[in-house]
Structures are given as structure tokens and as C-alpha cells.
């Protein structure tokens, strides 16, 4: 795995085409780290010129903002923008819809203007440009249902890129009762990931997992590290982890390519 940092490229006077924004989950969460690595393997294979910020990256401030701490959010944002602008970053790709949304939509007003794409959009682009090819062997004919992350789908209207990738794997894409614009939250957004849910009849991720299970999938595909955790917990709660895998779209592609 070749993972250059902005600092090291900068020292060599080089500028990568795209900055890979790893995000906190992608850097620290054991499950999400696998997604990060899968994505990097694809970037390496496709020969994409990229770099990460590494230790210079800090939380985008999304969970702080949605918890109501606008102050902390803006402090994070301003600090990150300073680093990004310092390196003259133009294009950013990230596997986290929360980072994606925040940098794309909320940073510009604070002085951070970049072209921001989600990794599923980026992968779709690589595919269209012929830089990766998907034969799909491993997943041919498998029933895969796709969970729309709120901050990618409804919040930013990215619905098709992940679906097209899944279909390219020759898999059978089955839709849940709530999908696309009417997708149901996994329960992690709005900083809920970091606290116990309020009292209710059940947890949101269980409800969403039930919707997924109704489609009788072999795989639940996600495109967000937080959704991934919530759905994985849901599948475990239903004791279905032996028969149903929860995988990020990047992992599906990396697996299919045997990376």
C-alpha cells in the first residue's frame, strides 16, 4: 500500500491530483479502517495521484456542528481550511458522507473552496475513464441491497453513483422499502453515533436493518463508515452475521478485483 502524505510530496515539490480526506472514522475506527485501505488499494491499482494529510488532518467538525456546537465546528473548519489552502488543495475525495457534506457545503463560506467528491463518485469516474474495470466475478448474481446514507443521498442528491457501481459487479441490486430520497436514517447522524439513543420502542438501526432484511439480501452495501457500523450492529442483533455481510462499496470493488 502506497500512501503518500501531503507533507512528503510538498517536500519533493510535488502536488497530487486529489487529496484523500480520510476522516476520523476512517483513521481510527477498526471497521472503517478496512474501508480506507480498500479504497487506497483501488487508488494504487488505478495509478491515481493522491495524498493524505495524515497527522495534519483534524475532524471536520461535523459532529460538533450537528450537536449544536457551532463554535467548535468553526474552529475546526478554520484550522482545516488553513492547512488545505496552505497546500493549495483543489480537489478532495472522501469516503465519509459527513466529511463530504461539511467540506463541500459548509467550508466555502469560511474560505475553503474545493471540488469535493464522494469516493463512490470518484470510483464511478475511474470506471468511466477505464482506469479500473469491474468484472464482478465474486458478486455475480448476488442479492445486494444498498442503504442510502442521509448525508450523501437526501442531503446532496448522490443516489446513482453507488448503485451503478454495484450493478457493474453483475450483482442483483434490490431496493428497500425506503430508498433514495425517502431513505431511512441508520440512526448515527446528528452526533447520535456518540451517545445513547433516547427512549423509544427500538433503535433506529434495528428498524433500518429490518427493512434491509426484508429484501433477503446476501450483502448490505453501505457508503458511509457510520452507516456501516450501525447496519453491522443491526445484523448482529438479528443474529444474521453468518449469512449477511455489510460492506462498503469500495470494499465490494476491492474484493471483486482481488486487491
Amino acid at each position, binding site marked *: 500500500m502506497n500512501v503518500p502524505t501531503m507533507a512528503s510530496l510538498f517536500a519533493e515539490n510535488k502536488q497530487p491530483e486529489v487529496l484523500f480526506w480520510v476522516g*476520523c472514522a476512517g483513521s481510527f475506527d477498526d471497521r472503517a479502517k478496512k474501508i480506507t485501505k480498500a479504497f487506497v488499494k483501488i487508488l494504487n491499482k488505478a495509478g491515481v495521484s493522491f495524498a493524505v494529510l495524515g497527522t495534519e488532518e483534524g475532524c471536520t467538525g461535523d459532529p460538533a456542528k450537528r*450537536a449544536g456546537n*457551532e*463554535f*467548535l465546528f468553526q474552529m475546526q473548519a478554520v484550522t482545516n481550511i488553513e492547512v488545505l489552502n496552505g497546500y493549495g488543495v483543489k480537489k478532495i475525495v472522501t469516503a465519509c458522507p459527513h466529511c463530504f457534506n461539511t467540506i463541500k457545503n459548509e467550508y466555502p463560506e469560511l474560505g475553503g473552496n474545493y471540488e469535493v467528491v464522494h469516493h463512490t463518485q470518484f470510483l464511478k469516474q475511474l470506471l468511466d475513464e477505464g482506469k479500473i474495470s469491474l468484472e464482478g466475478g465474486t458478486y455475480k448474481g448476488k442479492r445486494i441491497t444498498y442503504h442510502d446514507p442521509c448525508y450523501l443521498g437526501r442531503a446532496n442528491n448522490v443516489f446513482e453513483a453507488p448503485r451503478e457501481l454495484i450493478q457493474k459487479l453483475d450483482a442483483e441490486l434490490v431496493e428497500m422499502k425506503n430508498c433514495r430520497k425517502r431513505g*431511512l436514517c441508520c440512526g448515527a*447522524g446528528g452526533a447520535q453515533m456518540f*451517545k445513547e439513543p433516547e427512549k*423509544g420502542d427500538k433503535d*433506529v438501526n434495528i428498524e433500518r436493518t429490518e427493512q434491509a432484511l426484508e429484501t433477503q439480501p446476501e450483502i448490505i452495501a453501505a457508503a458511509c463508515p457510520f452507516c456501516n457500523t450501525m447496519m453491522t450492529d443491526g445484523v448482529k442483533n438479528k443474529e444474521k452475521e453468518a449469512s449477511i455481510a455489510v460492506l462498503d462499496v469500495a470494499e465490494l470493488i476491492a474484493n471483486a478485483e482481488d486487491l
Partner: protein
Amino acid sequence: MEILPNILFAVALVVGIGFFARNIKKLIRNIKLGRKVEVDDNPAKRFKNMAMIALGQSKMVVRPIAGLMHIIVYVGFIIINIEVLEIIIDGLFGTHRIFASLGAFYDFLIASFEILALLVIVAVVIFWIRRNVIRLRRFIKPEMKGWPKTDANWILYIEFILMALFLTMNATDAKLQQLGALHYQEAGTFPISQFLLPLFDTMSIQTLIFIERTAWWLHILGILFFLNYLYYSKHLHILLAFPNTYYGKLRPQGQFENLDSVTKEVKLMLDPNADPFAAPADDAPPPEKFGASDVMDLTRVQLLNAYTCTECGRCTSECPANQTGKKLSPRKIMMDTRDRLEEVGQNINSNKGEFKADGKQLLDDYITREELWACTTCNACVEACPVSIDPLSIIMSMRQYLVMEQSAAPTELNNMMGNVENNGAPWPFNQMDRLNWTQES
């Protein structure tokens, strides 16, 4: 003697419209209690949204059955205004069916009104059944007890009665035309009310005129009553849906507002030349409150949202928190905001135009913290709303107040925020370990 009805009519009209204007003034004053916001960007897009969503009902048809019936009632309501115009002219000048001179076109108009009136009656009956017999889930949530439920039914009854009066008026008119009664020239075709004619077969001309006049008067008085009922009802949306969709959010749903007041402070903190201990200038405005604890802290758009809410519950039925039995209901957030705003408005009315502190506020007295913290900010409510209301923005404003003014976030969130502040990640990991994943297999 002849002109007495005309005078009475003019009085009724002036009183009806006068009351209405007074309420609208109150409404505007209340909305202006909110913070001013800049919403004059991109008028073209805003007009387009208004045309599509309010006029074109594009979001209603997401649920096809309710959507179709709603369109019938809506079109019926708009078209019937031509009829109302005729009634007003007739009423003021003592004419009868003044537009009759339009000839065949008039026949066509009356015929289409009648058909619509019947469709409206059918739709209203189905709406009533959905609320009272089938009891669709979103109509029987806790916030729908009492007035909200009564209000919804009242609207249906009034619409039913208005349509029934309209058909009765036409039927007796047709009969009088057949009998060649003085004043009742032949005009209009009556594809629906003709079926009512047998009811009136045995009646004398006097009785028929009495029924026709009564129906005519009740019809127009009913409309004036309905106009004034709006202010107290969820039915206000028939007017406010238009400005509300115009002022609706244009940015991507995921993009939340960056608070300017905070930006100023952050800039000051990071400015190496700023003196952190400098006393504020004497003429400096008092520091802005962060977030909202009462209606005056909300924006005018948020308050307009509250008055526009139709209490349809589409937001609540899509809300993941509500679906899993949590206390949060985005509809209730909107209803609470309107109720509190009305309470503040009453307070101002009875205190000669000034608000006297009443020891209450929107937070805690209406909306509980438990509701606010249950929101996942998923935007499902915003997407679902047929009139571009954004309940999430109110939830966020109130969370901002809780966190930035009161430091009253749940402990776990405080931990998370502490981590972000100290380690640049929501978990207690060292920033220097951010690249460890590259070394792990």
C-alpha cells in the same frame, strides 16, 4: 326597501374582509418578532419553487391518493372564486347572475363548477373517513388531540356545507328558471344539481325563492366566515404556502447555516493582533444570543414555517426517531412554535404593544430536551413536507442554545466535543496516530 339587501351585503363584506385584514396584520407583526434573514438571493429559483410546489402541488403527489384528492379540493377552491366574484357583484348591485351574458361560456363555467363541487364533496368525505374511521397513524399522534383534531374536521364540515349550499342554490335557481320566475333569467347548465330538482317539485315559487336566497346568503357568509377562520386554523396554509415555498431553503439539504455571530468570534480569537481583553466599544450592540430558546430568537422564515404548517404529519411519519417510538415529532415542533408565537402575540396585544415577560419560553415549556436530542438531522422531515417547511432548522437552533449558552449537552456529547477540541477526533485517540492504519495489515 329594494336596496336593503345590497346594503346588508356591503356591510357583511366590509366586516368580513376587515376582520381578516386585522388578523393578517397581527400575523405579520408576529412573524416580524423573529430575526431578520437575507432571503432575496436567486428570485428566479424561488419563484420556480413556488410555482412547482405551492401552485403545482408537486410534493403533494408523492402520496398519490391524498395528493389527487387534495388537488381536487384545491382546484375546486380556486375556480369557485370566479363564482364568488359573481356573487359579490350581484350582492352589491342587486343583479342576478351578472356573468350570464357570457352565454355558452357561462354555461360551461357553471357546469364545471358543479362537477368540481361534487368531486370536492367526494374528496372531503374520503378525507373525513381517513381521519375518523380508518384513523391513519399520522393523524392520531399525541399532538393531534383536542383542537388540532377538531380543527381538521371543522374544515371538512365547512367545505362540505359550502359545496352543498352551492348545489342547492343552483338547483332552486334552475327550478325557478323553469317556472319563469321574475328576475331568474335562463342561464347556466346544471349537470349535477339537476338531479336535486325532484326535491323541489311541489314547492311554490315563494318557497323556492326563499330557499335560493337562503342558500345564496349562507354560501357567501360561509365563505366570509371561512376566510376569518383561517387565522386560527391549520388551514392558513392555503395562503401561506405561497410565501413559504418562496422562502424555502435553496441550499443542499445537508448544508446548515454557519452562524455569522460565531464566525466573528472565531476570527477574533484567531487574529494575533486582536486584544482578547479589550473591553467592547460603548456603542457595541449587546452580544447576540447563540441559538434559540424562544420564538423571538428564531428567524422570520422559521416563524412563517410555523404558521404555514398544515399538520399533515408527513414529516412525522417519515421521521426515524418518531418511527422508533421516540418522543420527537417534527410536526409537534412546528405546532409548538406556532402555539408559543400566538401566546407571545396575545401577550403583546394585551400589554399595549409590548411583550411582558411571562416566565415561559419555547424551550422546556413547549419543546423538551428529550425531543431535541432525539433528532438524527437526517432531513427526512424536510424532504417530506409538501410546503417546504424545515423543522430541522428549529431543532438545530435550539440545540445551539442548549450547547453554546447553557453547556447542557448530554454528557457523552460533551465527551465527544472535548475529544474533538483536544485530539481533533471525536474519540480519545492521539492525533499523531492518524496514520497508523497505513502500517496495519
